[in-house]
């Protein structure tokens, strides 16, 4: 397992290099610089600003010095927030986004697994159709539609929950978490239903039934572990998607998280901020994919043997 993780981490290095290089080239090929939006900056000031951020050096030199800084964990100063470091800005947004993502994942896993397992227990009956149709609705209801609709109903008409903000009024985390989590709940429901159906037709489940175990014990002790493998494999990519989804949810609910920082940075042409966030996101995604793969290996004895056999 250790060797497997190490190998994957080594593989991540070229991926991150590609990410940094592509983003760097993209950002620097953009028409208009970070300071061109400011109105009427005198020539000398512009020059001084560019010198301060090394923008007057040739591109390859900028690239190499940036690469050197990143390796040491320094993402450089932000262009738009003078005096503030990109590391600092990322960290300040991260805790909010991580919290939002955590709640959303809780919603997704809780609702998704329960719906999927319920549906798999009596396939092709009402107990299957109702949660699965609900899951399909969840998939077809994008967060940028679900969020405003929730706000409209529960925030504006019923006035049960605050319409925006984060950590200001009690209950202001409920709607963002549901908005972000619903789509994933729907996917998890479909995946866990599929996984459970596969497992429930296996011989060892028949054995458990023959032993006279209660349905609850069969599901919880014997079937869940195998049936949830597809869900676990989905969690890594889902996390990546969650970050993307947080752009929208953070915009709708005005949450000061990483997603909103990123969109703002992109609009402001804040080069170092864009680069820093991108590198950071890429690293996170790679790490979470690795984690979910390791979890899948731990859950699945067949895969475990394969990994041992390789190393």
């Amino acid at each position, binding site marked *: 397992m250790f060797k497997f993780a190490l190998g994957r981490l080594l593989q991540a290095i070229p*991926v991150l290099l590609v990410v940094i290089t592509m983003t760097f080239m993209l950002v620097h090929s953009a028409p208009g610089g970070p300071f061109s939006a400011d109105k009427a900056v005198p020539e000398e000031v512009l020059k001084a600003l560019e010198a301060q951020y090394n923008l007057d050096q040739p591109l390859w030199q900028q690239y190499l010095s940036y690469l050197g800084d990143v390796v040491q964990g320094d993402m450089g100063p932000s262009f738009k927030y003078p005096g503030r470091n990109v590391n600092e800005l990322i960290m300040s947004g991260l805790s909010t986004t991580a919290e939002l993502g955590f709640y959303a994942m809780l919603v997704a896993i809780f609702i998704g697994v329960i719906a999927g397992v319920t549906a798999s227990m009596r396939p092709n009956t009402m107990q299957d159709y109702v949660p699965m149709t609900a899951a399909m609705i969840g*998939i*077809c209801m994008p967060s940028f*539609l679900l969020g405003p609709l929730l706000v409209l109903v529960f925030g504006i008409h019923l006035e049960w929950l605050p319409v925006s903000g984060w950590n200001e009024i009690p209950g202001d985390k409920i709607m963002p978490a549901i908005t972000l989590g619903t789509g994933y709940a729907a996917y998890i429901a479909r995946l866990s239903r599929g996984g459970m159906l596969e497992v429930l037709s296996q011989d060892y489940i028949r054995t458990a039934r023959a032993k006279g175990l209660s349905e609850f014990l069969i599901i919880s002790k014997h079937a869940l572990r195998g049936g949830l493998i597809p869900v676990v494999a989905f969690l890594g990519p889902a996390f990546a998607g969650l970050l993307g989804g947080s752009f929208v949810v953070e915009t709708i609910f005005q949450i000061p998280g990483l997603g909103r920082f990123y969109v703002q940075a*992109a609009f402001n042409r804040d080069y170092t901020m864009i680069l820093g966030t991108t590198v950071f996101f890429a690293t996170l995604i790679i790490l979470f994919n690795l984690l979910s793969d390791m979890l899948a290996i731990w859950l699945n004895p067949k895969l475990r043997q394969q990994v041992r056999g390789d190393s």
Partner: protein
Amino acid sequence: MSTNEITVTAEKGTSLWEDAWIKLRKNRLALIGLGLLLSLCVISLLTPWIAPYGYEEQNLLMGATPPSAEHWLGTDIFGRDMLTRIMWGGRVSLMVGFIATAVALAIGVIYGAVAGYIGGRVDMVMMRLVDILYALPFMIFIILLMVVFGRNLLLLFFAIGAVEWLTMARIVRGQVMSLRKQEFVEAAHSLGLSQWIIIRRHIIPNTLGPVIVYTTLTIPSVMLLEAFLSFLGLGIQPPQSSWGLLINYGVETMEEYPWLLIFPGVALSLTLFALNFLGDGLRDALDPRTSKD
């Protein structure tokens, strides 16, 4: 007694496609999806002729009005007919869905087929590249692309297509690789059939099923991506409109005029619904393992 006459008909084998069609016809949800989709396509094609009002027709004096006999889905704050705007927006949304999926399909199928058919070291290098691309945060790149190069429709097709081909490549490669080792392909080889005939008679038809299914499921995810970008203000730009953009406008005024959010939202969700149900239905229908019952 004529009804009880015994008729003897020759047993006729059904092909995979006839079989699939029989199964699909029994799946009511998939059929509803197919019907909905076809009518949407027809409406989109005919929009310039059948839209009740002109696309740019404004009536500032009227402003936003709820649904009425003259304006079935109401009007927006400029007094523009919502039904007309949703019809025109649907054209763009569907077009993005189909064209970007076609881009992804072309790249993915060719790439996957080459990797799967050649195999060996070439395959390993090609698939490792796909693995690397998978790990890239694409959503971020697309946002960046749209910001850096301006909101260009062609670029949008390209960017979305470039993201979505990866899974297609994997599916096609897996299918081609497993087919190459099947007995009936080996049998065809030993019968002395040419490479080209084997590809045409055996590889392509047997790969088509998963490709069709995945294509049907890619279209909604592409449409969703476009709507997502338009919602953030990075996709389709006015005066053009798409459902994502209409939803974006709807959100701004939803407190006073909720129908401006609800109707484009329903249009988008219904279309995604139709496509997903059709995709699921096709998957069941084209899977030879599901029984004929």
